[in-house]
């Protein structure tokens, strides 16, 4: 999407509900939003989802917000590696894991 200001809470929730191990939102650098505050809104929504995850017993670190510009390719790669490593340490999304167990049991 053209601006992280369009990221709604439900987008992040649905990704996790459908089994994503982690979700990160990559917004523009703070203070550099073309639409003024889109990335700041996204930041709040990510924090909100983290609180929801805590309340349902899931690790809030499965969602994260990063800020970088379109010209920072190496930084994007670094963020991807960082998030991948974080998720690897957290393990698979427990919802998906349960689903797999059910399939095996069936």
């Amino acid at each position, binding site marked *: 999407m053209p601006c992280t200001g369009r990221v709604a809470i*439900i987008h992040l929730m*649905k990704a996790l509900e459908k089994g994503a191990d982690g979700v990160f939102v990559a917004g523009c650098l703070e203070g550099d939003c073309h639409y003024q505050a889109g990335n700041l809104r996204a930041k709040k929504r990510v924090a909100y989802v983290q609180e929801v995850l805590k*309340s*349902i*017993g899931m690790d809030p670190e499965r969602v994260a917000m990063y800020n970088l510009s379109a010209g920072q390719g190496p930084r994007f790669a670094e963020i991807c590696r960082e998030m991948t490593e974080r998720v690897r340490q957290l393990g698979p999304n427990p919802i998906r894991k349960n689903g797999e*167990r059910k399939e095996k049991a069936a």
Partner: protein
Amino acid sequence: MIMAKPKPIQEIVNVIKDFDKVLVAGCNGCVAVCEAGGLKEVEILASALRMYFANQNQNIEIGEVSLTRQCDKEYLAEIKDMVPKYGAVLSIACGAGVQFMAEMYSEKPIFPGVNTNFIGVTLEKGVWSERCAACGECILASTGGICPIARCSKRMLNGPCGGSSNGKCEVSKETDCGWHLIYERLKTLGQLQRFEVPNDPKDWTTSRDGGPRKIIKEVSQA
């Protein structure tokens, strides 16, 4: 409009955990405006509940619906074929909506998903504030358009009290003193002489003291 706040997820889980199918029912009226019980909140709550129960390895189906209003029978009737398919309904409308849902679908357990708080206004995006206590006998004409019942912590009819300091209430430094606001407004309107005539004791029978209230407008009746 009527303002509400979502209940903690754990409280909701505790009341619905023994059902196989639960319908989360939102209301696109007041509670949608205060972002507690509208379509978006239905989606978020239903998703959170699905994840919670999946995580617990508990197979509970969570359905979603959002009505135009839950305080009118016509809109509640729209889910008459849907409700029987569920074991319980979690309504995230205000207390009136939850009760009307329970009256209409009396054979089904109906649970509240929000706490209904007050009648208020949107101060800014994400901030809502109380303005009316629905006392049934409006005195705004004599108080400069600022309600002492809703905005004075003591609901004083003649204030301010000794707890008012620098325009703030003793209850909290964040809370404006309702009577200080009234004083400033009446000063602006050139009506400070109003303070020389005390308000009479209020007849609270028009408020909750008179029991549950009802309004009948004959010309509008069928």
